[in-house]
């Protein structure tokens, strides 16, 4: 049986339905991500698991116990917010100790556990600082320690990295995942950032307009998107409509064709490589290790990614090129 079982969850605010028939099963120790654009209902799902919102219908079970209408303070669910929500009137130490004090732990126990947590999130020396004296990354680590010290059964992360700058976000991402693995925490992570979702998750649930669009491992979702929405959201897929598919590849489809930009091979027109689709480079973007070309093939624009191996291979805007697309790299999505 799943450790965290969400069954047929629905949430309506007035007449608008925010979450529809949402269901998921999470194993103990699994790191699951809800990924979707803002307003897709992912945060509402999280808030229902935390107990801040009551579902209109459906059930939430943790470790076999019905939690659907249990008060948030009795759920044993820890949560970390995007804006940290640290208590401004308390020091780092007092913030982390808050949950233990509420549980009437002894002073020596509080001191020991808070000390362990401070070590875990690498904040030694900052015990007596107030939140406003810390950087964003440090604040979020305090928030994490505060949620973890009471040993929650489920950890909820509501876009915890979104307010941080790029460099801190990447290092904190690894630290977060490392701690989660070490403590074997059952975790739900909410984000709109597909890179975050791909690098951290055991499983990703892509959400759109209140329902689950597709779920699976990061590799699954990346290589086998089932719908046009997932293909757009997860990769930078080239999506071709019915007419375009026929015109470009001669493949009849009812929905869309999805082609990953890195699966298309690109050759200069005069390279002697036979066959392929002729096109002209409109412009390119240098993404560091990758060069992303935009190639016009008639009326159809395609993105093509190549590894940035050698500056001499760079094809300039206006160059005529040939594109090779293998049939097995083309995916039909609904």
């Amino acid at each position, binding site marked *: 049986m799943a450790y965290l079982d969400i069954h047929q969850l629905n949430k309506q605010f007035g007449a608008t339905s925010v979450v529809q028939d949402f269901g998921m099963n999470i194993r103990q120790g699994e790191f699951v991500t809800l990924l979707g654009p803002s307003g897709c209902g992912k945060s509402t799902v999280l808030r229902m698991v935390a107990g801040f919102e009551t579902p209109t219908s459906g059930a939430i079970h943790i470790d076999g116990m019905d939690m659907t209408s249990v008060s948030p*303070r009795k759920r044993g669910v820890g949560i970390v917010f995007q804006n940290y929500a640290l208590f401004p009137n308390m020091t780092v130490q007092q913030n982390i100790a*808050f*949950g233990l004090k*509420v549980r009437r732990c002894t002073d020596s126990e509080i001191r020991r556990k808070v000390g362990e947590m401070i070590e875990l999130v690498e904040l030694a020396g900052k015990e007596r600082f107030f939140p*406003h004296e810390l950087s964003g990354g440090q604040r979020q680590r305090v928030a994490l320690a505060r949620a973890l010290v009471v040993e929650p059964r489920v950890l909820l992360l509501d876009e915890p990295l979104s307010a941080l700058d790029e460099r801190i976000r990447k290092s904190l991402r690894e630290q977060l995942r490392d701690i989660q693995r070490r403590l074997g925490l059952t975790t739900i992570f909410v984000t709109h950032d597909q890179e975050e979702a791909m690098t951290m998750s055991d499983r990703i649930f892509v959400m759109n307009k209140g329902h689950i669009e597709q779920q699976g491992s990061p590799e699954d979702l990346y290589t086998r998107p089932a719908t046009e929405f997932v293909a757009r959201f997860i990769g930078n897929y080239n999506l071709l409509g019915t007419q375009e598919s026929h015109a470009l590849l001669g493949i009849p489809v009812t929905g869309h064709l999805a082609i990953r930009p890195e699966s298309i091979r690109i050759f200069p027109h005069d390279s002697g490589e036979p066959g392929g689709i002729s096109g002209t480079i409109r412009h390119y973007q240098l993404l560091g290790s990758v060069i992303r070309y935009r190639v016009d093939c008639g009326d159809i624009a395609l993105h093509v990614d190549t590894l940035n191996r050698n500056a001499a291979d760079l094809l300039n805007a206006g160059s005529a090129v040939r594109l090779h697309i293998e049939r097995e790299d083309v995916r039909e999505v609904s």
Partner: protein
Amino acid sequence: MKRDSRIGAWLAIAFGTLYFLVPLAATFLFSLKMRRDALSFDAYRVVLTDPQFQATFGYSALMACLTIVSGMLLVAPTAWWIHLKLPRMKGVIEFITLLPLVIPAIVIVFGYLHLFNSSSFLPLTASERSTDLLLVASYVTLSLPYLYRSIDTGLRAVDVRGLTEAAQSLGAGWAGILFKVILPNIRSALLSGAFLTFAVVIGEFTMASLLNRPAFGPYLQLMGANRAYEPSALAIIAFLVTWGSMGLINVFARNRGGIRCPGSQSS
């Protein structure tokens, strides 16, 4: 053009200052003239040593403190709940808290006397202690606009929902969240509400007079009707108390957030 408007502004300020300071200075000067042919603080000595002054001022100060405590206990949780659960009710509550400014105190107190007189279902005016209770209740009503506004401003400045939810998920109950998390973070708002309330209550006349309680306001009126120099001294004293309260608001409003020991290292 710009120069003209600036001169106009300075003129307005100068006029306002004179309008405010001249009577104050005249009152102060007059209060020093009790002794013939010399300036002295005799009037102040007389006032401050008057047992009636001490008794009424002490009574009013006590009433003010009780008002502050009960007003806070009423308003702080209400404002918090409104912020957290019923943000749409903000306008309604704001309107209700403004009513004491619109309805004259004398109307309110006649209403009380009608409801709670000694032959009513709840005869609060039957004994002195229960009349004190009624007086505190009416002072809470009077101070609602000031208390609610300052607390509301304080709550706007903190992430009420985030802090509440964080504390909830850590296992805290409602009372714990209010006293350990919410109130400490709006400390300066609470203090300014408290000082405003103190200033309002200490000089209040209508309620205390009509409920026949020995408060500072009726004493001021009595002195004003029967003495020459002492009322001026009293006016200056009352003025200083009020302005002292205002000054303290500013002091506390500036010391926001955490205060650390000097000498400890910073990031």
